[in-house]
């Protein structure tokens, strides 16, 4: 099949009949990230069943999340929402004493029009714990967009002024500092001189702590100081955000958070590609430097060194094709990185495409394709899984990145797959973790290389066509 080299990226939209995780799954990583939080998902048995099964063993570790399971009396408004939520939140306060309770609104609360945003402030003042409301439902959002709705709601809770907060924070953390007495205080504030003077920069997007440290240090090398992260390790440590601050997103699915920071907190968004892959990381740093008026240094060598260290993996994938079925919104960035690695991408499925928030990433994808001399991929928003599987059967790509619902059936038909959800849980950001992305991408290829002489590729009988 020959594909005509098109001039610009093409965007299509299918039926939206695709498989993805429900956005409430964001509680799985957010409750771990924000250590003093408690997530209350207000929904039905269906939501609970999904969480229970999707999170596997995490369920048994006394997680800081729970379902407020709606019963028939709640649906028909025989019970009073406010009283019911108050009862549960008091129980949570008593058992766990969190610094914040995050209410996750679901499809059901949308349909019965439960006014969570209205109830939260009342209850908050009554029980004395902040209540943040996020509508992470399957009617409107897919998978990782759940985090976006939570962070957008959190953005409104970031303190506005430095001074007030610092003292308050000290007070709140009095016990913590007492316990840390005698320990050496981290010398973060030690050397202000290492940094160039610039407008404060706050990064947004939930990442594992080691990755936060890595990216923060990466910017520090350029003399850029990261004033804070949304979210931080604890709710009580949410960063100060003042009007005029710069903000930058680290993940492609954070468009609502970006909008909130710009419109409600009057921040300036640095639109850049996302720090995924050495090319993305470099472009991200360069863009931040250029906005802050800094000349980046040492990036050439840094990037080259990372590419060199990945050569063994690159040899496995050069010239191979990868098909993204689309379910987590990381697809554009990953495709861009894999094209740079020498792969071709016939199709990028994606649940939702914010062309403004991802503008820089899309441009980088386009340029990368041109530079590598490969056809531009079709970008398919709201894909139709059934149609996609027909296209996969026809073109037989070397690798399909897909959800767990399709992975085993495709493998049984001799098609290599990589489970897409792993990309959201693995550490994939920055220079340091680039190799980890390729570790994931090449794993099915390496495994199948090991088994290739056994003649066991197709393990289903040919289906009879009627």
């Amino acid at each position: 099949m020959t594909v005509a080299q098109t001039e610009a990226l093409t965007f299509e939209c299918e039926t939206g009949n695709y498989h993805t995780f429900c956005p409430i799954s964001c509680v799985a990583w957010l409750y771990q990230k924000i250590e003093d939080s408690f997530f209350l998902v207000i929904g039905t048995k269906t939501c609970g069943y999904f969480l229970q099964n999707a999170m596997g063993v995490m369920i048994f570790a006394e997680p800081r999340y729970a379902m407020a399971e709606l019963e028939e009396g709640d649906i028909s408004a025989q019970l009073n929402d406010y009283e019911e939520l108050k009862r549960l939140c008091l129980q949570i306060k008593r058992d766990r004493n969190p610094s914040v309770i995050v209410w996750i609104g679901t499809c059901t609360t949308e349909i019965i029009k439960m006014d969570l945003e209205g109830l939260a402030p009342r209850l908050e003042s009554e029980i004395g714990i902040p209540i943040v409301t996020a509508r992470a439902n399957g009617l409107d959002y897919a998978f990782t967009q759940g985090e976006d709705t939570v962070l957008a709601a959190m953005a409104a809770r970031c303190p506005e002024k430095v001074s007030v907060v610092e003292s308050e924070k000290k007070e709140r953390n009095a016990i913590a500092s007492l316990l840390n007495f005698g320990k050496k205080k981290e010398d973060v504030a030690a050397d202000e001189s290492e940094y160039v003077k610039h407008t404060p920069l706050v990064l947004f997007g939930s990442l594992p702590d080691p990755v936060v440290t890595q990216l923060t240090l990466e910017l520090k090398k350029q003399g850029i100081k990261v004033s804070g992260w949304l979210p931080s390790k604890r709710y009580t440590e949410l960063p100060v955000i003042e009007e005029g601050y710069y903000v930058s997103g680290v993940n492609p699915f954070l468009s609502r958070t970006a909008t909130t920071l710009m419109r409600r907190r009057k921040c300036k968004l640095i639109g850049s590609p996302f720090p995924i892959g050495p090319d993305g990381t470099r472009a991200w740093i360069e863009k931040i430097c250029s906005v802050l008026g800094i000349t980046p240094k040492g990036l050439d060598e840094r990037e080259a060194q990372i590419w060199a260290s990945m050569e063994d993996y690159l040899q496995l994938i050069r010239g191979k094709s990868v098909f993204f079925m689309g379910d987590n919104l990381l697809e554009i960035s990953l495709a861009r990185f894999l094209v740079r690695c020498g792969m071709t991408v016939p199709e990028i499925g994606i649940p939702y495409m914010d062309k403004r928030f991802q503008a820089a990433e899309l441009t980088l994808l386009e340029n990368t394709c041109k530079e590598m001399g490969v056809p531009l991929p079709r970008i398919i928003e709201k894909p139709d899984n059934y149609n996609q599987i027909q296209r996969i059967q026809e073109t037989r790509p070397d690798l399909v990145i897909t959800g767990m619902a399709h992975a085993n059936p495709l493998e049984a038909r001799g098609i290599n797959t990589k489970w897409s959800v792993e990309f959201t849980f693995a550490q994939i950001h920055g220079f340091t973790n680039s190799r980890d992305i390729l570790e994931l991408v090449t794993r099915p290829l390496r495994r199948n290389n090991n088994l290739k002489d056994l003649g066991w590729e197709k393990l289903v009988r040919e289906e009879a066509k009627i």
Partner: protein
Amino acid sequence: MKLAYWMYAGPAHIGTLRVSSSFKNVHAIMHAPIGDDYFNVMRSMLERDRNFTPVTISSVDRNVLARGSQEKVVDNITRKDTEEHPDLIVLTPTCTSSILQEDLENFVERASIDTKCDVMLADVNHYRVNELQAADITLRQIVQLYTEKARKKGELPTGKTEKPSVNIFGISSLGFHNHHDCTELKRLMTDLGIEINEVIPEAASVLNLKRLSQAWFNLVPYRELGVMSAKYLEQEFGMPYVDITPMGVVETARCIRKIQQILNDQGADVNYEDFINEQTLYVSQAAWFSRSIDCQNLTGKKAVVFGDSTHAAAMTKILAREMGIHVVWAGTYCKYDAEWFKEQVGEYCDEVIITEDHGLIGDAIARVEPSAIFGTQMERHVGKRLNIPCGVIAAPVHIQNFPIGYKPFCGYEGTNQIADLVYNSFTLGMEDHLLEIFGGHDTKEVITKGISAGSDLGWNKEAQAELNKVPGFVRGKVKRNTEKFARDRGFSVISLEVMYAAKESVGA
């Protein structure tokens, strides 16, 4: 509202999907928001299904909220009809769609005008029934649909098969060891000279459902799935059914005797007594096991049992009646079927617990401190935290409970498997005994991961060393008992003296 993060039985639509997707060439269309098709992931992961799960979503989104589904559901049904040519499409409501109160019955009627396949609406109320009840209802609905259809067309077969034959009900996708049980039951029936007429729903074709009435009787091995269908057929055709779960030596014999009676009532003249005797004494190892020295050492040991009605009841009887184990309490999460369960296990355990609350079960285990637990994955994790071994006997389960190897729970091979499970769970009676005599071979420093987060009690050096000499699997219990004793008496440091005093006070 109810605060919860773990449930034993899933929502209703899971039951419907388990039944519909067990049939061959039946497609389910869920009227649900994006993300609710998690069932496909479970099928693909837990069962390692090689085929695409025949379930799609007709997505409920903002447009549907604003204007109703309109043509969407109908279009999705007709589209699936032309794409996959299923025999039947089951429109499956979810908890979300049931609040919308759209006239799904109307969609089904309209769609079936244009489709080659049959279309059916699963008639389950999401706020009143759970996964298991919904599965039972859906199976009955499908059986009824095709029975009535055949009757209208005059295609119902008359009379019975020549030789005695049986329908096996309730083997389904994502059922606990269902595939292995199915093989074992077929083998058992063959041994008894009974032909298999139909097995439903797993791998069955809906087009064959009209043949159900040809069988001499129906066998319903599981309490949770199939009873409604069996009752329906009894009412329609006067077909008798056997609902004794052939799990354990005594129950398997009882099940076979019931079959014998039913066949003889229809003039078969069979006698299975010799078969039962031969199997029990010489083929199955379970009867011999209960006589052996190994099992003697299990006498009077404490166990607790929790699971679905079928497995929890069967295990309780096996433990108490066939192995002489002391079942302190037995419980089930099938609240809707509580009476049946109480009646089944009442005489085999000290207490019956009926609850859907995993917290309550966890506490009940901690309170009793049994030597072994037989429960679901949740109880296995409770066991881990309390250092008590657990054999998994019922759903909800993880991927390791879908073994590739042959591990039935039913029939005579099932009794062997259960004997292994029980024996391995009870930390090897003889070894336990020997370790106690010789003070244990475990010299690790780690003491225990107790269920309570932190202990305010200090153990002095000698006591700590002594505690380490206690064999690993009872160490946690000794530690907890000693600490409880010390706390009650107001000791702040546990010395050797305190430790021994504690030991004496509990008489251990």
